[in-house]
């Protein structure tokens, strides 16, 4: 066949890929022609061609003849497919900020999508949508414009300049042209500055908006107590002129030391929001002691459930719990110690409402057992993260923090809560009775309810779409890192030998690199030793290894849930006979 005829065939195949991605058709004909067609279509950011390439094992195998080129093509294909998958989700006005986070991870300088022309300027995404997703509903397109913080959406159409205070630099003008040259990360940083001076910009930060709403709800409770007539003039005068936080603290003290006739609901609202009183605070040494006591109590708590047994299997040498403040969360897995940190404020809030003090807790195994039950779902959740980290370490492979990790961890937690609710009356009582004052308890029950209701398949969608939209999926993270690593390896091919050798002896090692987030790794490629980059490239070119692990874990979970529900199918079933 002549070169001209082959070129014509490749162009024709690429044209078909442009239209429909050729789910079945692409696997026909000469694999070399298909590979060339994929390269052509993917270079123009065609997501259908990217998806077809990822499904075409023959073409991908052929591409392996040039490992670097293959990794680069794979990275771009994964990035395009991931972008299309992301935008296929249900994005609307209410989830604009989640979409913003998801896009900020994906569209930035030197990311695979930007190399394909979908960024780094966010408006390039709009042109891509016109070309490859013209049939998206108007509401979704509007959500994308808001998510990329288009100038007209944020500042309106009446002006092309915004003046704002920028730290010590004083008043600065931001023009529409400046804005359009910024990546999403930079636009978000500007908006954060604006929020500090103008609360109308709070709508661009869900967490800060929700925190403000919480604060308003507690403020309303505070006003209700003060207007209830239940406080003496002396007590009211004590509160007068004090800051909001001080008033909550003082009121909590008054609830403990006098009989103030307001509803328990109001008291709980104030108690749960206020700072701990001195007797309720767990000092460092008592936190250490409590951690040790919880190791035994939580181990006992997890035994006897399938999810609990899986969680315990992550700690062959025994649980390793510490109690300490955790910023913004109820728990975290500490990879440096291999242990789980439980949030001391969450425990102290429970103690405040139950009337426990640090001293009473240290003397009462029953109170410790109660805390162990209360915090055990958080331990199960973090155990899944430990299993993930251990798996990666045992294989020496790079494991980025991705949505799939959250699906696995929240599924295990959901299974555990479901099991305990059915098998452990006291656990059920503790969680159900704590819901009204503790968002932690209500959330743990919510995760259990969602997992039980939706099953594994539906629950994964809930996690991706609602709970962890700000995290990259495995394919996004892989695409991002692969793109950066591959470009750097190409650069090193032409690097003077002495320079390369110095880098390989003094650069960042494998162990240092494995601890990095995808972002850090992508931005640090120039400082990493060459063999380490080759290793990371190899790891992320084979996502099947990761996917089979997630799939195995999911199979285990759904089998357990199905078996559990089979065992209780008749217990209190709300199903009437099929009569009509």
């Amino acid at each position, binding site marked *: 066949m002549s070169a001209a005829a082959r070129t014509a065939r490749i162009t024709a195949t690429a044209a078909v890929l442009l239209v429909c991605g050729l789910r079945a058709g692409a696997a026909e004909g000469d694999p070399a022609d298909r590979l060339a067609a994929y390269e052509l279509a993917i270079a123009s950011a065609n997501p259908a061609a990217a998806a077809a390439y990822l499904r075409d094992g023959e073409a991908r195998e052929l591409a392996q003849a040039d490992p670097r080129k293959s990794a680069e093509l794979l990275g771009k294909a994964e990035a395009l497919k991931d972008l299309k998958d992301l935008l296929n989700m249900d994005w609307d006005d209410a989830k604009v900020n989640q979409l913003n986070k998801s896009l900020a991870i994906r569209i930035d300088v030197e990311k695979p999508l930007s190399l394909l022309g979908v960024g780094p300027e966010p408006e390039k995404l709009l042109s891509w949508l016109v070309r490859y997703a013209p049939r998206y509903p108007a509401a979704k397109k509007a959500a994308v414009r808001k998510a990329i913080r288009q100038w007209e959406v944020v500042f309106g159409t009446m002006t092309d300049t915004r003046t704002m205070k920028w730290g010590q630099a004083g008043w600065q003008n931001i023009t529409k042209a400046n804005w359009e040259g910024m990546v999403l990360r930079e636009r978000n940083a500007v908006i954060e500055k604006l929020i500090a001076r103008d609360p109308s910009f709070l709508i661009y930060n869900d967490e800060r908006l929700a925190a403000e709403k919480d604060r308003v709800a507690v403020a309303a409770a505070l006003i209700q107590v003060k207007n209830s007539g239940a406080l003496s003039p002396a007590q009211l005068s004590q509160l007068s002129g004090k800051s909001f936080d001080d008033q909550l603290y003082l009121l909590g003290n008054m609830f403990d030391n006098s009989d103030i006739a307001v509803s328990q609901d109001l008291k709980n609202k104030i108690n749960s929001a206020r700072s701990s009183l001195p007797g309720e605070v767990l000092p460092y040494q008592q936190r250490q002691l409590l951690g040790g006591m919880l190791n035994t109590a939580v181990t006992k708590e997890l035994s006897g459930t399938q999810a609990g047994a899986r969680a315990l299997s992550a700690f062959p040498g025994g649980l390793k719990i510490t109690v300490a403040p955790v910023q913004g969360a109820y728990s975290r897995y500490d990879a440096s110690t291999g242990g789980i940190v439980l949030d001391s404020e969450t425990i102290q809030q429970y103690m405040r409402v139950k009337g426990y003090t640090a001293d009473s807790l240290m003397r009462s195994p029953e109170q410790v057992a109660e805390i162990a039950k209360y915090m055990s779902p958080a331990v199960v959740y973090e155990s899944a993260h430990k299993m993930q980290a251990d798996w990666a370490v045992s294989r020496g492979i790079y494991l980025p923090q991705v949505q799939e990790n*959250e699906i696995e961890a929240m599924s295990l937690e959901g299974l555990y809560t479901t099991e305990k609710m059915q098998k452990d009356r006291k656990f059920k009582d503790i969680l159900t009775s704590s819901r009204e004052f503790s968002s932690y308890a209500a959330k743990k029950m919510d995760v259990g309810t969602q997992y039980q209701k939706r099953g594994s398949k539906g629950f994964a969608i809930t996690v991706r779409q609602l709970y962890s939209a700000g995290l990259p999926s495995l394919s996004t993270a892989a695409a991002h890192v692969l793109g950066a690593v591959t470009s750097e390896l190409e650069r090193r091919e032409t690097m003077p030998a002495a320079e390369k050798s110095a880098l390989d002896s003094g650069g960042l090692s494998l162990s240092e690199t494995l601890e990095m987030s995808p972002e850090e790794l992508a931005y640090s490629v120039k400082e990493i030793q060459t063999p380490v980059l080759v290793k990371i490239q190899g790891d992320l070119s084979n996502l099947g290894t990761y996917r089979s692990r997630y799939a195995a874990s999911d199979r285990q979970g759904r089998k357990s849930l199905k078996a559990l529900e*089979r065992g209780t*199918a008749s217990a209190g079933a709300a199903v009437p006979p099929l009569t009509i």
Partner: protein
Amino acid sequence: MKNALLNLSLLAFMASPSLAGAQPKARAEQYKPYSMEGGHFSCLVPESWELKRDKDQDEEYKIYEIELVAPKSAKAPIAIFISYYSKDNEDFNDYRDYIKRNSRNVAGETKTSRENYAPVKNIRLNDRKGFELSSETLEFLHPESKSDESVALKEKIYVLPAKSGFYVVRFSAPREEFAPNLKVFEKVARSFKGRP
């Protein structure tokens, strides 16, 4: 404090749809037929709604479903799911298991300050015997963080037993969007045809 309350009211006002001006009167929704390969089911689908399907996941779980998403959404998607749970599906033992798990929370409660599940009703849909479930719940959006942001959801579900497996036609929407979109759901449900 007063300022904080004022700011929040201002934000709520700014977010109000009324600011967008009077909405044009909605045109009557157009429908087109949909038929899933393998003969699992067929139904009418609204043309302006987005149809989504993940075939690989369907095969993995042996749950064959489509999701229809409304063009206009609010705090959470307005979505209709039409699903066939094959007899050996990976998630539910049978239709009774599905009904039990979707008619109460994980503690077995049907009424709490954040959840309200109505009693399960017998129904007849397109000459099939079945069940109707409905609920109204307040869902957290960030369960592993300390943010308490939530969304109020309403759900209506038809569960239709079949000789092999069972069908589910489910409608989920934020509370304020439920009633305006219920007609679409009922049109889809009433056009549904599955295996006996």
